[in-house]
């Protein structure tokens, strides 16, 4: 096995084998995964990351195939991370998103990777963010992240993507129902796909009307586009809007959005680290099981137990 430094260098050089291996390492969450991300981090931050989300059957994968095609026509290099759900029962997964993108399997400037959620709720895999970093470090201009068929709560994509495209389609029941609350608010661009179907105009009108109800004045008003992914209709305009949004982000609004992102990222990382440290220590001192039993026997509630532990840890840290 090559060293981590060599692997990271391979990724930065754009070597496909290294990119593939790096993502596997991150997915398997081995000890080296974090170290690899540290090595790659200085090379990231250049790619524009586009999230594609929306209900199952709205045509996300087909739309992405056409997006790749248009981006390649404009000379951009592309990375794709396509997510499908893992079974909560067997842990297995059927990853079929790339069937529609196989045309680009042999394009040297396109890298497509299928990821299973491995039972993390939120619509994308836990490893997705770091996999994005790998593709970013590898020099891809645009990275497209496809979520699992999302309904209402799958909004984790905003922690990963600069531009979130919410795709819906007429005839999936009540279109607005399918994209209400959470997912409605995360959209930077709305796409009504399958716009050649009956009721397409009605769906667009409904959506626009409900967007008008958002009293909040926003600097960026999410446009509502119509596409027919099968024929490629409307794709050029979608790519235009994506770059429009990118330019908007770079003009200032983006700075605060990016800052908020990094804040969230840092807080998450700290939480993870602190929790790992404390739990490892409790286990080492063999008091963890005791604590679990106390909570099980209703002698103490988990929140009080956590407060006490954190207070103790902070106290002993001060002494050191």
């Amino acid at each position, binding site marked *: 096995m090559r060293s981590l430094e060599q692997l990271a260098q391979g990724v930065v050089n754009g070597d496909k084998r290294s*990119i593939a291996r790096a993502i*596997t390492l991150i997915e398997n969450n081995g000890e080296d995964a974090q170290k690899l991300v540290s090595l790659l981090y200085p090379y990231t931050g250049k790619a524009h990351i586009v999230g594609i989300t929306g209900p199952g059957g709205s045509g996300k994968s087909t739309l992405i195939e056409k997006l790749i095609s248009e981006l390649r026509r404009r000379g951009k290099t592309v990375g794709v991370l396509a997510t499908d759900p893992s079974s909560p029962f067997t*842990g297995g*997964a*059927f990853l079929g998103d*790339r*069937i529609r993108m196989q045309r680009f399997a042999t394009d040297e400037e396109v890298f497509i990777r299928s990821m299973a959620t*491995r039972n993390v709720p939120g619509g994308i895999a836990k490893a997705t963010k770091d996999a994005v970093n790998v593709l970013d470090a590898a020099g891809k201009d645009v990275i497209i992240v496809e979520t699992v068929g999302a309904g209402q709560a799958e909004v984790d994509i905003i922690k990963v993507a600069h531009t979130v495209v919410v795709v819906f389609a007429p005839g999936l029941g009540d279109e607005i129902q399918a994209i209400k609350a959470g997912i409605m608010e995360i959209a930077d661009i709305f796409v009504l796909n399958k716009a050649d179907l009956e009721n397409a105009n009605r769906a667009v009108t409904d959506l626009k009307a409900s967007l008008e109800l958002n009293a909040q004045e926003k600097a960026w008003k999410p446009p509502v586009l119509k596409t027919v992914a099968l024929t490629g209709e409307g794709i050029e305009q979608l790519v235009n809007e994506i770059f429009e949004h990118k330019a908007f982000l770079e003009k200032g609004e983006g700075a605060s959005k990016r800052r908020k992102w990094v804040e969230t990222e840092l807080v998450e990382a700290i939480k993870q680290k602190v929790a790992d440290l404390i739990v490892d220590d409790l286990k080492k001192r063999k008091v963890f099981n005791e604590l679990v039993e106390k909570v099980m026997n209703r002698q103490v509630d988990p929140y009080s137990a956590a407060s006490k532990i954190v207070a103790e840890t902070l106290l002993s840290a001060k002494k050191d």
Partner: protein
Amino acid sequence: MSSERKIRVLIAKPGLDSHDRGAKIVARALRDAGMEVIYTGLRQTPEQIVETVLQEDVDVLGLSILSGAHMALFPRIMELMKKKGLNDVLVFAGGIIPEEDVPQLKKIGIKEIFGPGTPLQTIIDFVRNNAPRKA
């Protein structure tokens, strides 16, 4: 943090077959056995398949073919795999493959060939027992 290790499998359909019932049944069985299964869809060239093996970093490649072109397509796939340095990937095949072709296919590195009627459990066990343990 525990390190999770999942077997990743690519099920691929080289050549001009017009249906993929068998491939999908095998894909589903492996999925239900807890593996992550990627499917290429129909009518793939050897180049597309090998490139997908590489990008998806799979441990196992399952080839399904019904058209009779296996003696042309499989050697090409195995040759490309070697060229890309993908020697540690377990390769098996299924579909309509005459008995007399089997020795030659095994010689070029295809570990096992499963004909029609093979119990799914046989294939699952084979993959579990032979999937390489990559670092």
